[in-house]
C-alpha cells in the first residue's frame, strides 16, 4: 500500500509540472498587456509601464518568469494581484473556508441521499420508487446549477422568506443557514449521478454468484444487501468520483457567483473578468493541485475497498 501511494505521488509530479506550465502560458497568451492592466488600464507613459515591467519581471523571458513563479509557488508564494496588490496566497486563504464548507455540505447532502435512494431503487426495480427516483435524477442531472439556485432563491427567499438569498454568514454556524440553499443546488447534480451509479452497481452486484452463496448461508436479506452487495455496488461509484469532484469544483464557481458567496469560485470569475492574471494562474494552480490530490485520495480509497487493486 505504501509503495502504491509513493508510486502514485511520484506520477503526480510530471502531470502537475506540465499543468502548471499550461496555466502559466495560458495567462501569458492573453491579448492584454499585463503592465497596462496593472496601471489601471488608463493611458500611461511608456516609462511608467517600463518600471512596472521591471518590478514584476515582465521583461524577462517566459521560461525564466515561469521558473520564478514556480519557485515562489513551491514556497507558498503565488504572486501578487495586479488589481488589489494583495498576495494571491493570502487571498486564497481568506476565501477558502467558505468554499470548503460549501463543498463539504454538498458532498454530505449528495451521498447521504444518493446511496440509500440508489439501494432502494435497485432493490425495488421497476416499482414507483424506482421510476420516481430515476425520473427525478434525470431532472436533477439536467438542471444547470444557476437555474436551481435562482428557483431556490425565488421560492425559499422571496416567496417563503425562510432562507437568505445572497451572501454568507460571519461564522461556521451562521453559514450553515446561508449555505444550505447553495449547497443543495450544488449537490443535486452529484446526488443524481451517485444515485444512478449506486442503483446500477447494486443491480449488478445482486446478480453475482457470491450473492447466491450468501443466500445459501441463510443470511438475512439485510446482511446480504448491506454487507455483501453494497461494497461491490459502491466500486463504480468510487470510480467516477474524480469526475464528480470535477463537476463539483466547476459547480462551485457557478454557485458562488449565483449566490454572491465570497469563495474561491467567485474570486476566479472576478479575476478572469478583470484580467487579474496572477490571481487566475495562482488560483488555477491551487485548484488543480487540490483536484489531483483528492483524486489520489479517492484512488487510495478504492484500494482500501478492493484488495485486488491494493495488491496489484
Amino acid at each position, binding site marked *: 500500500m505504501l509503495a502504491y501511494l509513493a508510486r502514485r505521488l511520484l506520477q503526480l509530479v510530471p502531470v502537475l509540472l506540465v499543468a502548471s506550465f499550461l496555466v502559466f502560458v495560458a495567462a501569458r497568451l492573453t491579448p492584454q498587456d499585463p503592465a497596462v492592466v496593472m496601471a489601471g488600464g488608463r493611458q500611461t507613459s511608456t516609462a511608467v509601464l517600463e518600471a512596472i515591467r521591471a518590478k514584476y519581471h515582465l521583461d524577462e523571458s517566459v521560461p525564466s518568469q515561469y521558473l520564478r513563479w514556480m519557485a515562489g509557488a513551491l514556497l507558498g508564494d503565488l504572486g501578487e494581484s495586479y488589481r488589489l496588490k494583495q498576495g494571491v496566497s493570502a487571498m486564497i486563504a481568506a476565501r477558502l473556508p467558505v468554499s470548503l464548507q460549501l463543498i463539504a455540505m454538498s458532498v454530505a447532502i449528495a451521498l447521504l441521499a444518493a446511496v440509500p435512494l440508489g439501494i432502494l431503487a435497485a432493490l425495488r426495480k421497476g416499482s414507483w420508487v424506482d421510476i420516481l427516483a430515476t425520473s427525478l435524477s434525470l431532472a436533477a442531472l439536467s438542471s444547470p446549477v444557476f437555474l436551481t439556485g435562482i428557483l431556490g432563491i425565488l421560492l425559499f427567499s422571496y416567496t417563503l422568506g425562510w432562507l437568505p438569498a445572497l451572501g454568507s454568514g460571519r461564522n461556521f454556524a451562521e453559514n450553515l443557514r446561508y449555505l444550505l440553499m447553495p449547497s443543495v443546488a450544488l449537490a443535486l447534480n452529484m446526488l443524481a449521478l451517485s444515485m444512478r451509479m449506486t442503483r446500477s452497481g447494486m443491480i449488478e452486484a445482486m446478480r453475482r454468484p457470491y450473492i447466491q452463496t450468501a443466500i445459501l*448461508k441463510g443470511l438475512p436479506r439485510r446482511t446480504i444487501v448491506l454487507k455483501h452487495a453494497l461494497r461491490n455496488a459502491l466500486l463504480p461509484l468510487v470510480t467516477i468520483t474524480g469526475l464528480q469532484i470535477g463537476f463539483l469544483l466547476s459547480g462551485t464557481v457557478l454557485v458562488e457567483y449565483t449566490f454572491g458567496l465570497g469563495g474561491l469560485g467567485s474570486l476566479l470569475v472576478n479575476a478572469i473578468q478583470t484580467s487579474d492574471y496572477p490571481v487566475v494562474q495562482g488560483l488555477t494552480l491551487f485548484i488543480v493541485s487540490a483536484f489531483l490530490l483528492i483524486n489520489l485520495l479517492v484512488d487510495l480509497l478504492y484500494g482500501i475497498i478492493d484488495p485486488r487493486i491494493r495488491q496489484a
Partner: protein
Amino acid sequence: MSGLLSLRGLRVAFAGEGGAAMAVRGVDLELEGGEGLALVGESGSGKSATAKAILGLHDMSSTAVTGSVRFEGRELLELGEAELRSFRGRGASMVFQDPGTSFNPLLRMGEQVAEAFRSVAGLDRKAAREAALGLFSRLGIRDPVTRYAQYPHEFSGGMLQRMMILLALAGRPRLLVADEPTTALDVTVQAQVLLFLEELKEELGMAVLLVTHDMGIVAETSTRIAVMYAGRIVETGGTAEVLGSPAHPYTEALLEAMPRPGSRGTRLATILGLPPGVYEADSGCPFFPRCRHALASCMDGLPPSVEAGPGRKSACFRTHSLSLRGIA
C-alpha cells in the same frame, strides 16, 4: 419407500425477449437419502436451472417455477422466504461452477467462512472463528491464522472450491447439489476436488446431486444417472447399466461422440442439427429431428417415460425395439 427429494413436473421459464423461455419443461426425478445421482446434459439442456430450482435460487421477479419439489415430504415451492432461508444450508445446499466468483471478492476469506458457521450452524462469533480455522487446517492450509485474513483472489481455484464444499456442508444438509463443480478447474485439480467430495460423501452420508456434462465424471462419482435433453429427462438408471447399454438414442449418441482410447483415426459419430430452442413449442419427440433411429411415428406427441429395465426409464417411443451401443 419415502425418498429424500422428489421432483414432479418441474417447469422453469424465464422472461426473455421472445416471451417465456422454457428452460425446464417437466422434470420428474427421485433421489434417495445418501444417494449419488448425476444430472447430465449439454449446455442449454436445463440441468442448471433444475438444480437452482431445488434450492429456490431463481429470481422470482423474472422466473416462473411450477410443478412440485418435495424434500422429505415437504413442498419447497410453497415455502416462504423465512422458511426457505432456514431450509437452505440445513436441508439442502449447493456448490456452484466457478469458485472464483462464488466468494465475495471484497471480504476476507475467514470472515466469509465464519459467517456461514454463525448463520447455518448457529455458532457465536468466537466459536465460528474456531470452526473456520479448523476448516482451514482440515484443508491442509499452512499458517491458517494468516490465511484467515486473506482475500479470495489469494487462494487457488481448487482450494476455493473445496472451501465452498465445506461451507455448503456447514449445516450438515442431507442433500448437496453440485452444479458443474469442477468445470472451471484443471483436470488434475478436478480429480482432487472430486476425490474430496467423495470422501465427504462417505463421511457425512449426504446425498449428492451432481450436475455435469462429462460422462467420465458421472461414471467415476455417481451410482445413478439422469440424462437431460431440451428441458426434460430422457433417460434414468444405474450409471453402469445406462453407460453400458443406453436405452435412449440421445444417450447413445452422446457416448459415441466422445473421443476415447482407440478412437484415433476413426470418425466420431456426431449429432446433427440443434436441439429445439427455448421458445419452441413441443411437436413430437424433441430429439426426433436429430435421431438416427427415428420413425415417422415419433412425431406423434411426446414420448412417455417408460420402464426400460430394473430401475431404469427412458422417454423414447422405441425403447423396447432398439438395441443401442454403449461403452464397455
